[in-house]
């Protein structure tokens, strides 16, 4: 008697939707990037559950790459955020109205 696969998928979906709300509704670039991290976390949970469900290692390999890509994305994203903050003095995406 184990855990139904659907429960784990539901958990992954809830986490992903929370990240989506964070990305779409917050008005702070750092919080929006955190929302992307939460979404990646939800995807990783789904992959691990699928790896256990079908007893294949592909799912776990994918989670390894998700972690690596999250690291790359965060380093570049935070560098861009620092750059934008120095340029405009604000973290609110609505303040970025100047193209130059």
């Amino acid at each position, binding site marked *: 008697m184990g855990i139904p696969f659907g429960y784990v998928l539901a958990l992954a979906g809830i986490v992903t939707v929370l990240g989506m709300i964070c990305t*779409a509704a917050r008005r702070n670039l750092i919080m929006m990037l955190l929302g992307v991290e939460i979404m990646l976390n939800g995807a990783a949970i789904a992959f691990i559950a699928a790896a256990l469900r079908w007893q294949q290692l592909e799912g776990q390999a994918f989670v390894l790459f998700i972690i690596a890509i999250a690291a*790359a994305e965060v380093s570049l994203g935070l560098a861009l*955020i620092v750059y934008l903050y120095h340029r405009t003095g604000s973290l609110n995406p609505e303040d970025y109205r100047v193209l130059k």
Partner: protein
Amino acid sequence: MTLFNMLFFAIAALIVASTALAITRRNLVHAVIYLIFGFFGSAFLFYLFGSPFLAALMVIVYAGAIMILFLFIIMMLRVEAPEERLFPLRQMLPAVFLAAAYMVIGGLLLINDPSAGASLTEARTEPAAFGRYIFTQSWLAVEITSLLLLVAIIGALLVGKRPLKGDEE
């Protein structure tokens, strides 16, 4: 109800609670700390689902490096200006509407899916077996990922350098 199930439900509640707390915090430092707890929950879940290596990696890389990078940036920029409203209504309504739509449709999909009831039982992947799999079956992806990390480092260096030049002109 076995211990495996109880652990799963406890960890799931922890993950959802700390993530929900994280996305509603006004203070960025508190949000990051709550999210670190959420990632610890994910690490527990990975351990429960039989991949101790990925659980360790989750703690080391995600909670230990990525979130601490966020903390560094928050403390470096000293963003004290609080948002006037936590969730501006103009942005909140579409987000909540979309989230509710996705939850309803996803729930219906899961209920209708006959294979969603397949139960997960305990299994364990030894880190050595996992490493052998990674470096024999998907070595090309490993190389591409390392190249991507190199590109990210170079890009971050380039972007981080530029505002100094912009100030001088």
